[in-house]
């Protein structure tokens, strides 16, 4: 009961902070989505960090360490690797965004390829792949509350409450609300993770060193990445697909954060220091290893972190941990709502008047969040298959983005669209038919097909087709 009270209070506090983020009256989408491109490095840091640490960090990484041991280490380097690339990519995107007034990812494709159709394709795919990710956050939030209270109905109640609060503060404050909540979320998360790092291994195994020394004696294979379900190729391809997806800004809700920066230097500065922050992901992995020693294999892997926490901390402290975990669902959910709604309002529906765009945008926030909530409660497995496609599907935007970053485009719109669609078809086919090539992530295979087809089509259109035209045009 104490944990539930702390949890609900925390959710309300996050909602209030989101409301307080608003600074004035919003008359257009640019102010609501990217805050007039006026955020300094400090705020952009929290926006970028806030988007990367989600319920996945809290629940799934510890769960993967519990089931796959060292395989979970794939989660340590992928974001730092992405930030190395973002150090160079994000300032270019920001510069283009400022020059051409981008608010969304699809704006980039639409403008760079002079093709509203390309923009629409990217917008549709972005929403389709991001919706299951939003549902995952809401479902994860319900799971967190259910685990700490031991009550299923409180899980559903918290899902409804959190979604309502997120929708309300997103509509009221836009990205400024997300930034305001991100400060609390990240501060709370760092404190909670450090406490868990000390308390959980000490309580169950006598300390971190003992956790690994015992694992080495009992099950040494868990300390290595080896042949099997989580092979070396699985590890590398998982790192690469997630790193490329983030590095090439293929995730729609990355864009408002980057475009809201005041200058390029703020983005470079964050890319320099954000890798250090990602080290924190080692903590859920260490807790997952602790679970490996003390919990039964039948325990739900996603519940390992909270199950161990509940056994080691008093009720109120478990509530605080749950608030941090809940915040890691609410803040990214808010960013996702903004990412998806602007894609629809700017690139799909495109009302002529600014007022109409704001209305469509706000309606989409309510509809997408409501849909994710309803499906999360009634059919939590319905979007589960689509979730498998989220990163492997989104990463297919990467070649089209990279090819259009420079002053001279490397791909024409036809080959870029062809490559993108081919990549998506390959990923869908591999995923839904459960076809695996040496445990390589389907996203990487799709990406290879994407690049080969796009480059092949580009070479064809640049060399062979003009020759055909010349031959056809010659008098006979």
């Amino acid at each position, binding site marked *: 009961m104490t944990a539930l009270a702390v949890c609900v209070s925390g959710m309300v506090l996050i909602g209030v902070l989101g409301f307080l983020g608003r600074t004035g009256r919003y008359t257009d989408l640019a102010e609501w989505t990217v805050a007039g491109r006026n955020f300094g490095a400090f705020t952009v840091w929290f926006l970028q960090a806030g988007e990367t640490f989600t319920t996945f960090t809290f629940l799934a990484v510890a769960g993967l360490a519990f089931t796959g041991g060292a395989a979970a280490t794939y989660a340590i380097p992928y974001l730092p690797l992405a930030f*190395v690339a973002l150090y160079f990519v994000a300032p270019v995107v920001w510069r283009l965004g400022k020059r051409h007034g981008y608010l969304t990812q699809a704006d980039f494709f639409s403008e760079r390829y002079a093709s509203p159709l390309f923009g629409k394709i990217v917008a549709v795919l972005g929403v389709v792949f991001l919706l299951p990710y939003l549902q995952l956050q809401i479902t994860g939030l319900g799971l967190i509350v259910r685990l700490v209270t031991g009550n299923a109905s409180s899980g559903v109640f918290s899902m409804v409450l959190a979604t309502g609060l997120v929708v309300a503060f997103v509509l009221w404050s836009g990205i400024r609300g997300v930034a305001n909540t991100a400060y609390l979320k990240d501060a709370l998360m760092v404190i909670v993770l450090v406490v868990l790092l000390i308390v959980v291994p000490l309580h169950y195994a006598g300390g971190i060193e003992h956790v690994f020394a015992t694992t080495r004696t009992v099950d040494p294979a868990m300390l290595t990445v080896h042949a099997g379900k989580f092979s070396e190729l699985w590890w590398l391809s998982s790192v690469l697909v997630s790193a490329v997806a983030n590095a090439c800004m293929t995730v729609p809700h990355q864009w408002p954060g980057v475009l809201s920066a005041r200058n390029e230097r703020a983005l470079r500065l964050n890319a320099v220091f954000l890798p250090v922050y990602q080290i924190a992901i080692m903590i859920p992995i260490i807790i997952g290893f602790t679970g490996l020693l003390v919990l039964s294999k039948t325990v739900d892997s996603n519940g390992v972190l909270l199950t161990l926490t509940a056994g080691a901390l008093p009720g109120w402290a478990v509530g605080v941990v749950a608030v941090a975990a809940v915040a890691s669902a609410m803040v990214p959910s808010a960013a996702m709502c903004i990412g998806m709604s602007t894609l629809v309002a700017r690139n799909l529906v495109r009302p002529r008047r600014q007022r109409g765009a704001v209305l469509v945008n706000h309606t989409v926030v309510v509809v997408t969040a409501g849909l994710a909530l309803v499906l999360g409660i009634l059919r939590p497995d319905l979007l589960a298959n689509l979730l498998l496609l989220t990163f492997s599907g989104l990463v297919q935007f990467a070649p089209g983005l990279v090819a259009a970053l420079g002053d001279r485009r490397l791909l024409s719109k036809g080959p870029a669209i062809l490559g993108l669609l081919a990549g998506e078809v390959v990923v869908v086919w591999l995923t839904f038919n459960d076809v695996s090539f040496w445990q390589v992530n389907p996203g990487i295979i799709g990406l290879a097909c994407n690049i080969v087809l796009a480059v092949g089509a580009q070479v064809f259109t640049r060399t062979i087709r003009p020759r055909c035209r010349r031959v056809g045009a010659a008098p006979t």
Partner: protein
Amino acid sequence: MPTNGPRPPRRRRRAFLLLPIVPVLALVSAVWLPFVNSDRLWLGLPALFVWTAVWVLLLTPTLVAVEWGFYRRRGAEDPR
């Protein structure tokens, strides 16, 4: 912010851009290095943990070096 000293040759400035390649290669090759992907413990932690953590931490100094050696020396001013 531009420095006051003489600008180094472009080739030397561009060499700074290659610095992050070292930690990137160290990270993506981690599971293929037998002394890293093994059950031995370094400082009480699995070798793979320590290796990835150290190279992730080294990304920051290499990017600081790029910022200092390439962008600052180039004297590029960000538009505000």
